[in-house]
């Protein structure tokens, strides 16, 4: 009997410890941030500086991916839900509606900067000069039939399985090397952005494909965003460092990854020029380099004042020493916004201007 009592005591203690942690959740004294793995390196720097400056506990930042972050963020109001979510794309209309439905009515949107996506190869190989059309023809699953394949049934406006094996076949000006591109898998935000900016950019240059967009949007998206699966595009996992290592080992291959990885490994790999523009800090900032994407974060207004420090974190993030052209985020590889958009968003943050749902969301 005595031992039974002991066992019961252990069970009770477990229940209490779980229960007490519950009540702890009601008063969270640190900011909880979730979202994109692309924004993660920047959000964490701000969080750390904020914490070290002694204005509050260091926020906790989870890297869940843009979509995963939105799902957690829009799940409801209350301290068991995150306060801020990061995204490497704008909030989707469907996500905004989910937020509204779950009571997350007031959301402040902040555009923080840009990230360039580069196509790079080993420094021992020649630098490539590609157009977005070249990238589309080399990497899309289905492409317009090339001249050699055209006959009475297949015309220039028929889609065929991608027949190109070398860069030279795509464009005679390119080297006679096998198409071999290492890139992230479909779950990655980098892949989405690459498809949208590079592939679709090249896809649109065919007028008849562009015309499909008006009639059948999903068909258009399928043509422009689907990457070939016959071994010329190799899914190399989410880890960009790994892609850099593989490029060094295989000088014939190209790799797709974020600009900050190019910046850190400039002795090993070089970025290909796209439309004649090499990916540099300045060319991405002034938008002459075409493959760059916006980075956002979203704040739950209802949590400001409930969870301590959110306002301080926002002030830190939108201060010139953080997101300015000379700030520490630029040092980490984020491409800053132009001056006027910075001041617009800084004042939006100050007045906590919420999204109305009338924005141009997709």
């Amino acid at each position: 009997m005595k031992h039974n009592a002991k066992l019961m005591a252990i069970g009770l203690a477990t229940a209490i410890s779980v229960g007490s942690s519950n009540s702890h959740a009601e008063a969270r004294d640190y900011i909880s941030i979730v979202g994109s793995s692309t924004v993660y390196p920047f959000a964490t720097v701000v969080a750390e500086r904020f914490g070290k400056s002694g204005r509050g506990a260091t926020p906790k930042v989870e890297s869940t991916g843009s979509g995963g972050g939105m799902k957690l963020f829009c799940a409801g109001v209350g301290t068991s839900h995150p306060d801020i979510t990061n995204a490497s794309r704008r909030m989707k209309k469907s996500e905004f509606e989910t937020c509204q439905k779950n009571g997350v009515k007031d959301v402040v949107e902040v555009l923080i900067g840009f990230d360039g996506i580069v196509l790079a190869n080993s420094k021992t190989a020649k630098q490539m000069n590609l157009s977005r059309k070249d990238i589309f023809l080399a990497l899309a699953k289905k492409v317009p039939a090339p001249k050699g394949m055209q006959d009475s049934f297949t015309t220039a406006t028929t889609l065929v399985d991608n027949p190109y094996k070398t860069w030279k076949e795509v464009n005679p000006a390119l080297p006679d090397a096998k198409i071999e591109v290492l890139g992230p898998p479909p779950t990655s935000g980098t892949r989405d952005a690459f498809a949208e900016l590079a592939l679709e950019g090249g896809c649109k240059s065919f007028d008849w494909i562009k015309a499909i967009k008006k009639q059948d949007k999903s068909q258009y998206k399928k043509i422009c965003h689907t990457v070939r699966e016959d071994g010329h595009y190799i899914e190399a996992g989410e880890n960009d460092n790994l892609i850099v290592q593989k490029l060094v080992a295989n000088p014939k291959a190209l790799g797709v990854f974020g600009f900050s990885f190019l910046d850190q490994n400039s002795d090993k790999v070089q970025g290909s020029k796209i439309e004649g523009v090499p990916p540099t800090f300045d060319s991405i900032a002034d938008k002459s380099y075409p493959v760059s994407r916006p980075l956002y974060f979203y704040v739950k207004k209802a949590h400001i004042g409930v969870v301590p420090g959110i306002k301080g974190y926002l002030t830190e993030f939108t201060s010139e020493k953080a997101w300015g052209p000379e700030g520490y985020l630029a040092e980490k590889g984020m491409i800053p916004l132009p001056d006027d958009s910075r001041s617009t968003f800084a004042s939006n943050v100050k007045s906590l201007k919420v999204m109305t749902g009338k924005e141009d969301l997709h």
Partner: protein
Amino acid sequence: MNKDADTTDRIKETLARRYRAERRFRFYGVLAIIFGLFCVVALFVDIVSKGHGAFRQTFIEIEVVYDAEVLGVSDPNDAEQMAFADYEGVVKRALSRKFENVSGRSERRQLNRLISSSAAYDIRDKLVADPGLLGTRETIWVLADDDVDTYYKSVASGEPFTGRVNELQQAWIDQLQEHEEIRLQFNRRFFTSGDSREPEQAGIGGATIGSFLTLLVTLVLSFPIGVAAAVYLEEFAPKNRWTDFIEVNINNLAAVPSIIFGLLGLAIFINFFDVPRSIPIIGGLVLTLMTLPTIIISSRAAIKSVPPSIREAAIGMGASPMQVVIQHVLPLAMPGMLTGAIIGMAQALGETAPLLMIGMVAFIVDLPGGFTDPATVLPVQIFLWADSPERAFVERTSAAIMILLSFLITMNTVAVLLRRRLERRW
């Protein structure tokens, strides 16, 4: 007679071939072991060669002046003023005194980049601890920036990495080198501090404490539950279809991929019981689910190996079934159970997948102070660093792997020693 000779001849004929086959068979075994050893050695050499650099860190010597005017402090007893004083200004002044011929905004900024942002925080901590320093000057060693650190270490290896330091900065570093004002020191911070986005300030202290707290929760929950389940199933449970069914399920659970336990934890503990994300309690609960089958199976094996004669003797002396179990079976089975528990804990220590779902894959700077503070664990820290763009994280990743491996090796060695020492043969 004839027939016998025949057989002997035939045996002799095949004998050489059988010996050869025997030697080949052994050779395959040796080959397999050599292959395994080779892989282990290659792994260790790779990790150690990449990671050893992280244990030493580049420091730069500067002479700081705790000038009240530069700091903007009028009253050293005012905590508010001390917290927000301009400590960076003090560091910048110290650098510009060292390199007097540097002028122009952009050159100065490049100069200031030589030193880690932690220098200002270190000076703050010093001054807050001892306000009497105000107005004095002092020569201190401060952390160099990670780009400088990478460059300085790569110079020693003969292949300087100049991607992140320009020629001007290289000249300054050379000048520091001449005056012996830059050097490598043991990197204590790596063991004591939490995660950071600045590689030179990042450490595994936070992750180690997180791992410890999480494992403590796991051990406290899984060992008693596992042993109780094993004792009941082995000693008291009737043998029927139900207990067979339970046995099959336990064995099956031991083979379930760990990510499933993460999803289970998310659904039950976080969504249903509202346990907060990212804390050692939730991590421990999920890892408990994962290690329970291992502990139950090894505990049952340990109980089974206690000879029935001991039980019978105890019963013969008038002990009740519970006394038999508690006073005779459990003490004899304990070494086996502990070994199982340690191996289960070692498994839990190396696990990341289930923690992914419950928010322990997160950037956490502050050291966790208890079971309800957000925390991360060692393997997650390795995963996060491996994914970071900064090059200085490469050596830190490998160094963290070395630490994790040394913990695992220690735990497994203890398990083996314990078994050797306490194991009894009947």
